[in-house]
């Protein structure tokens, strides 16, 4: 039988994902090598490939706006170097 307080905890938990990509004018040597390797393997349809980072973040907050603002603060203050990277926050 389900316990009500556990249900409540789940309800208060929001999940987000953050995708971090290099800005268009920043060289991505790692991505370039991966791209070249795939092309050498015969993947002819591959046009361009860029490598990025992905984070999954759970928060103890049930207000989506407040939570999104918090995630944005995390990105601006640590997760992202805004000189070379862009980010996109999505609710999971």
């Amino acid at each position, binding site marked *: 039988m389900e316990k009500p307080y556990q249900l409540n905890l789940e309800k208060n938990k929001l999940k987000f994902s953050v995708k971090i990509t290099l800005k268009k004018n*920043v*060289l991505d040597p*790692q991505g370039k*090598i991966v791209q070249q390797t795939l092309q050498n393997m015969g993947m002819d349809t591959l046009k361009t490939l860029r490598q990025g980072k992905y984070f999954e973040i759970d928060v103890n907050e049930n207000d989506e706006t407040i939570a999104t603002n918090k995630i944005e603060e995390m990105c601006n203050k*640590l997760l992202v170097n805004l*000189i*070379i990277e862009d980010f996109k926050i999505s609710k999971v």
Partner: protein
Amino acid sequence: MNSSVIVFPGSNCDRDIAVALEKLQFKNKMIWHKDTSLPKSDLIVIPGGFSYGDYLRSGAIAGKSNILNEVVKAANDGCLVLGVCNGFQILTETGLLKGVLLRNNNLKFIGKDINVKVVNTDNKFCNKYKKDQVLKLNIAHNEGNYFTDAEHLKELEDKNLIPFKYCDKNGNVNKESNPNGSLNSIAAIFNNNKNILGMMPHPERMVDKIISNDDGVNLFTSLLNN
């Protein structure tokens, strides 16, 4: 002159630079990153190494440590700050120096002796060098490829904020003599006030003729000359 060397988990050039400083008559103290105050210092050094294993981005985690808040305050009050290698990366992550150090364009860790040209001597760190002098220093990094926006790059050149550029033995600055793809062959930069210097080459590895050469000595003696 009083110096403080900041030590992080993963620093590995902290003792080397302490030896260099003490050899050249600095009164040096080692400061653990969790400390929340700095002793009175004329020079703060952020040494090379791999603070926090380079997690997230080189220097990103160290840039948020307790002691860095104090370093930022002291630097903004005009204290001399030297960041070498990982120290340079940390200074860019704190925003004390603009720009960023990207992965070397050949995707390889580069550990070798290289040449740099002294481009600008009108500052507290390089006044004992001669302009256009070619030095042999050592680099050991995976992320030394300096990058910044076009506006800042112009500012660096126009205001003489680049003390060292990579070159060949004869002082030629070009694509062939640039080991890591750094913009304009930049090996080191200053902030606008020229009290904060970030450099990828290691001056502390070149302070003794017996084990290497002493091309790094004048960087330290320049500081004593102020």
